[in-house]
């Protein structure tokens, strides 16, 4: 008997960074791989297989999720935001700018996940304390920076965003 590759593929439709995208995928496909391989957006990284490292963090309906632990089919007809959606025509997102200004990254592999988690944090808590920032990003591992400058960057971005509210 011939083994089949799990079950039949189905069409998954997502609104990602404001754009509607569709692709056929197997039911078992993880959202992280759907984003990276089916949609070709490689900013979202995979660093573990146990939902521990957070490099794959994206926003699903505005909520940070580890996309390695969400099935692509669960995201069907949901809104996603990835690191690719942060920069606007007007330029870098204040968080991107603050990570650059404050040396908030070294190898850069964890950075997209850090940026997405902190985007949600600052939306819900525009003026977080350092302790709140540290707790918010505790699901995102960084092996290079010791978190010092990541925390500094997020606090710095929050201050800038407070003084220059985004045009919405």
């Amino acid at each position, binding site marked *: 008997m011939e*083994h089949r590759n799990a079950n039949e593929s189905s069409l998954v439709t997502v609104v990602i960074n404001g754009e509607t995208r569709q692709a056929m995928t197997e039911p078992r496909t993880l959202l992280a791989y759907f984003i990276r391989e089916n949609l070709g957006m490689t900013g979202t*990284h995979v660093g573990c297989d146990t939902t521990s490292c957070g490099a794959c963090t994206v926003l699903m309906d505005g909520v940070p999720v580890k996309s390695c632990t969400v099935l692509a089919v669960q995201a069907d007809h949901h809104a996603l935001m990835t690191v690719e959606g942060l920069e606007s025509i007007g330029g870098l997102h204040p968080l991107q700018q603050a990570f650059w200004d404050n040396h908030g990254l070294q*190898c850069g592999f964890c950075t997209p996940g850090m940026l997405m988690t902190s985007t949600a944090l600052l939306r819900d808590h525009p003026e977080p304390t350092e302790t709140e920032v540290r707790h918010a990003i505790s699901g995102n591992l960084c092996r290079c920076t010791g978190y010092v400058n990541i925390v500094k960057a997020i606090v710095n971005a929050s201050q800038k965003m407070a003084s220059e509210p985004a045009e919405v």
Partner: protein
Amino acid sequence: MAMEATESRPLGKAIKRKEDPRFIRRQGRYLDDIVLPGMLYMALARSPYAHARIKNIRLDEAYKVLGVKAILTGADLEKMNLSWMPTLAGDRQMVLATGKVLFQYQEVAAVVAETRAAAEDAVQRIEVDYQPLDAVVDPYAAMKPDAPLLREDREQKDNHIFHWEVGDREGTENTLASSPIVVKEFIRMPRVHPAPVEPCGCIADYQKSTGKMTWYVTSQAPHAHRTVLAMVSGLPEHMIHVISPDIGGGFGNKVPVYPGYVCSIVLSLQLGRPVKWIETRTENIATTNFARDYHMTAEIGATEEGIVTGLKVITIADHGAFDAAADPSKFPAGLFSIVTGSYNFPIAFAEVDGVYTNKAPGGVAYRCSFRVTEASFLIERVMNTLALRLNLDPVELRRRNFIQPDQFPYQSPLGWTYDSGNYDLTLDKALELVGYEKLREEQAERRARGELVGIGISTFTEIVGAGPSNTFDILGIKMFDSCEIRIHPTGKAIARLGARHQGQGHETTFAQVIAEELGLTTADVLIEEGDTDTAPYGLGTYASRSTPTAGGAAALAARRIRQKAIQIAAHLLEVSADDVEWNGEKFVTKGLESRGVGMGEVALAAYTNLPQGMEPGLEATYYYDPPNLTFPNGAYIAVVSIDRGTGQVAVERFVAVDDCGTVINPMVVDGQIHGGLTEGFGIAFMQEIAFDEDGNNLAPNFMEYLVPTAVEAPHWETGRTVTPSPHHPIGAKGVGESPNVGSPAAFVNAVVDALSPYGVTNLEIPLFPWKVWNVLREHGLTL
């Protein structure tokens, strides 16, 4: 505040990193981001047993999975004489197991298929019959005469790998015998794993039409990997193109060659299609090179006044199933002989015996210059024991024994020539920053209230920048590094180096070095690394060697550019070259500063208006063979308190004063120190790859192998002294590893200090709360 890359005279300035704009967007290009036309995916079947005979492997069911193109086993590789590969340590390692497996998760078969999922499906359907054998997990048990023989392939019929020793055994033993004070301590550095957030992987892309192999690989040493591949595969080296793309952290993990690399290369050669292999996190932690697993017994002799007289160190090193250590060839125990540290030991002896066990092979230098972490941890811990024995403040003991500034260059009893240092100055700065005297007063008050509060000191000396060609090689290749600079007609430059950064910031810092030498800005200099078809040969980035070696090459290549440029400048200034000098920004006529030409004008002239007879162009290459290693050092002070209810240790303060010589970019240096301290914290308190008695790996992923998050990571207070290296072209020493090397002992010394009133002198890392709680309970200190 960080500065822009357009800043002039950039050396020593906090220039914002040039690599960041791509990483904060989506434009980093890591290995798994690369997709080639017709690419196949590979997955590996692995052993569930730590030690077992392979009776039979059945592949029929696996081949039935749609999309499977080929499956390799050890038997297939044996026919090609590739079932074993050489290790950097002169041992050999199974690529795919033949006969028996020697560690849990060992590679048994490789499947290549049209999709990642199909390859994984097929792996699940490979059936292997194993006959389990007794596993050897403890390195001391491995050395017993009746221990099961692990490596039946060797002529030598025991589990001993090597014996290495240095120094004067008899003299040291005599000295210890006649010393009024001798302290002895057993210090274990358990097995840990570097675990960068990006795992290892590669794409082998063999084009049958051209005969060219393009190998994309997460490599900290792409040129060395090209040469190894040429030696192992027989492919001509000029037909191998190694590309090390953006790397998501390395920390030593991405130095060795792994079985998965060899399998993907073999499969690409067979099929003529690109083959991608990316590890899972579990595969990364469970199979690629670990670090440490050093079991050390040390004795220090001293006078009643606390002047050290001698040091003796006996070590058992657990290398796992194969000796896959990534050390320079002549150094089976790495640079462990830096173990005399910052202290003026008149005599010393150290020996290391390597043994096999049924664990993953290794080990690598994890954010460490070849076993320097083990050596520094040992000496800083045992000096702490000596201070306790003498009832002397650990600061005072260190001061009495520091190598003094006028002793440099200092000849250590174990054979190193330390380049420079001012240990009292560095320590003074740390004591001042932390407010040491007041801290000790506060500690006394808090102790009186029943609190467990400790202060730990570590004043370490590192040895980095391997290394000089008379001593250092890997597989015979000397450990120089290189830089090639080309100045374009419009005065902009491209520079390529043999190093390969993984987050260290070379695209900025080496641009600063070159820009400073040439009167350009950081923005004017594009740095490229990691492509063996374009970059000059170099040995790569690990062991804090980039700045000492490639950084030296960058400065000297730039000075070579200036040698030609001064001739052109003289031509432009219409004077003799003897009358022209470089004032740090431009070429000027001696005694007439106002008459000068900058590098931009000289560059244009190099292509448009040359002195008669001069060869056109303006470029230079420098292969830098460093005359010595560099010896960064630091003084670290940890302040901790222990929760008597839980055994949880809180790091209340940590002051790190580093002396890494000339600083190229203080922002980058601080970033390196923050990261290294956090890894040192993880090693002291959280990280351990433990095994059960059957050799099952108990921490093969981030659920069990705990690395610090932003919540556990302490706040770091940093400071600096600058004692330049006298032999390095710009006086720099390297810094990436100092904090990881120096900090574990400071943490442990602090916890021991908290408990020393109750007779505790030694604690085994990692200091999990349960372990500390057990010690509290033994001493009646729990709540």
